[in-house]
């Protein structure tokens, strides 16, 4: 006997649909707040700074290494066909279409998602959210709306930054081996990139940012009592948002490919 109660299939299904309802209600509440001024502008800007600026160092290092290593690993295969001149185009397409949004989202899911989940979870278990409520302040607007909006808006900016740094990493590798100039590399890299590629990349990162924010806030807002609940909220925020990011990636890729 491990002391855990075994749940019937019926109650598991009931739990699942109740959770779906809770998430749907949470998301609906977020969109309702859009039409409910005044907004917590100062807190929103603070969150933009936390999510955007404070993620830059980690993103810079990861993006540079991603671009550099991807280029290095692609060369032998292309060299076999004497097609190393295609490296800038290949790298450009790979980074803009897939790597930049995905790498940025995964880094932010770990860094931002866990931080939001832990912060709000901690506020929940120490009754700080209740304290806001009884002082007639809307904690949802102050905590959730600002963080989700900041996350959704900062991810596209960070994705563009990731793309640029990754291309820079790729250029350094290319320039060491092929002696290609900076201008030629970037002209070739962007030659095969269409407006749809850029647009879908931005939309994708917007969706990823929204997901990271909403999952982190939801997990934190529904944290159980106690410090264990805070750790659980942070951990499950990362796991759930990463899982959802991959699902969204598959769906968006299918939609974009059907438009291409």
């Amino acid at each position, binding site marked *: 006997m491990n002391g855990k109660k075994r749940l019937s299939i019926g109650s598991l299904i009931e739990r699942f649909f109740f959770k779906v309802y809770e998430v749907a209600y949470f998301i609906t509440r977020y969109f309702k707040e859009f039409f409910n001024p005044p907004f917590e502008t100062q807190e929103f800007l603070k969150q933009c700074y936390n999510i955007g600026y404070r993620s830059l160092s980690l993103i810079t290092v990861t993006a540079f290494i991603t671009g550099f290593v991807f280029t290095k690993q692609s060369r032998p295969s292309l060299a076999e066909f004497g097609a190393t001149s295609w490296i800038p185009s290949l790298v450009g397409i790979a980074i803009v279409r897939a790597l930049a949004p995905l790498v940025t989202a995964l880094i932010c899911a770990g860094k931002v998602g866990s931080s939001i989940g832990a*912060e709000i979870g901690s506020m929940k278990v*120490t009754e*700080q959210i*209740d304290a806001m409520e009884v*002082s007639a*302040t809307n904690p949802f607007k102050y905590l959730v709306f600002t963080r989700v909006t900041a996350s959704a808006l900062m991810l596209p900016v960070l994705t563009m930054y990731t793309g640029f740094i990754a291309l820079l990493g790729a250029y350094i590798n290319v320039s060491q081996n092929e002696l290609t100039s900076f201008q030629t590399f970037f002209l070739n890299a962007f030659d095969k990139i269409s407006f749809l590629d850029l647009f879908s990349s931005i939309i994708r990162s917007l969706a990823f940012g929204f997901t990271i924010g909403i999952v982190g806030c939801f997990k934190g807002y529904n944290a159980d009592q106690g410090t264990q609940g805070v750790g659980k909220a942070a951990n499950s925020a990362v796991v759930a948002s990463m899982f959802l990011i991959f699902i969204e990636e598959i769906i968006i890729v299918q939609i974009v490919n059907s438009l291409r």
Partner: protein
Amino acid sequence: METTQQTFTDRVIKIRNLYKSFGENHVLRGINLDLYRGENLVVLGRSGTGKSVLIKIIAGLLKQDSGTVEVLGQEVNTLKNKDLQALRLKLGFSFQNSALYDSMTVKENLEFPLIRHSHHMTRKDMAKAVEQVLEAVGLSQAINQLPAELSGGQKKRIGIARTLILRPEIMLYDEPTAGLDPITSIEINNLIREVRTRFNTSSITITHDLTCAKTTGDRIAMLLDGEFAKEGTFDEVFDTDNERIKSFFDYNFIQ
């Protein structure tokens, strides 16, 4: 439960037949309670008897299963969000663990409700209001400190100051002396009395601490197993043949 206290007449809180359960756990079983203007009412009882649940229902943080809760003539459960927010501005809630916003300094904690609800105030007026409440709780020097740098007693004082800054009519204190040493507990008890005089508040104090009940309460309501077992002045409640109440007092004295 009709009050035995005759000096207070203007009723600010009226609770009738209040029931609240969490699953199979029946926490409140038909509570009746009145709070009168200017009165300090103490709800006394063991941990886990539903005392905190009671004041959370009064503040609209929890919903009752049945029964009515009227605060300043308004039925809390039926209020629209906007009206509930307006009512909450007249209620001050001091949490058991103070619930200070730990990422903000004391000054920012105190300014937080002001910024959102006192739009007519200038920065200078806000600074003055912060100074006044800090002075009232005797912690003017802590203005730029973070909650993590404060002691338990100081946190309680700042928590009370944060609720006082909006000048509430009713104060709800959740276990104000829990986790404090005896000297600090006495200071907090004195502060509760001072708050009533200085800010003209009525209050409900939830506690299991007999010293707190005796020092701060004009009237005591003894909560046992989700019901009020006895109500009156401290001496009236203390002077009883009820075995369950006697065992509560005996336990407290041993403690």
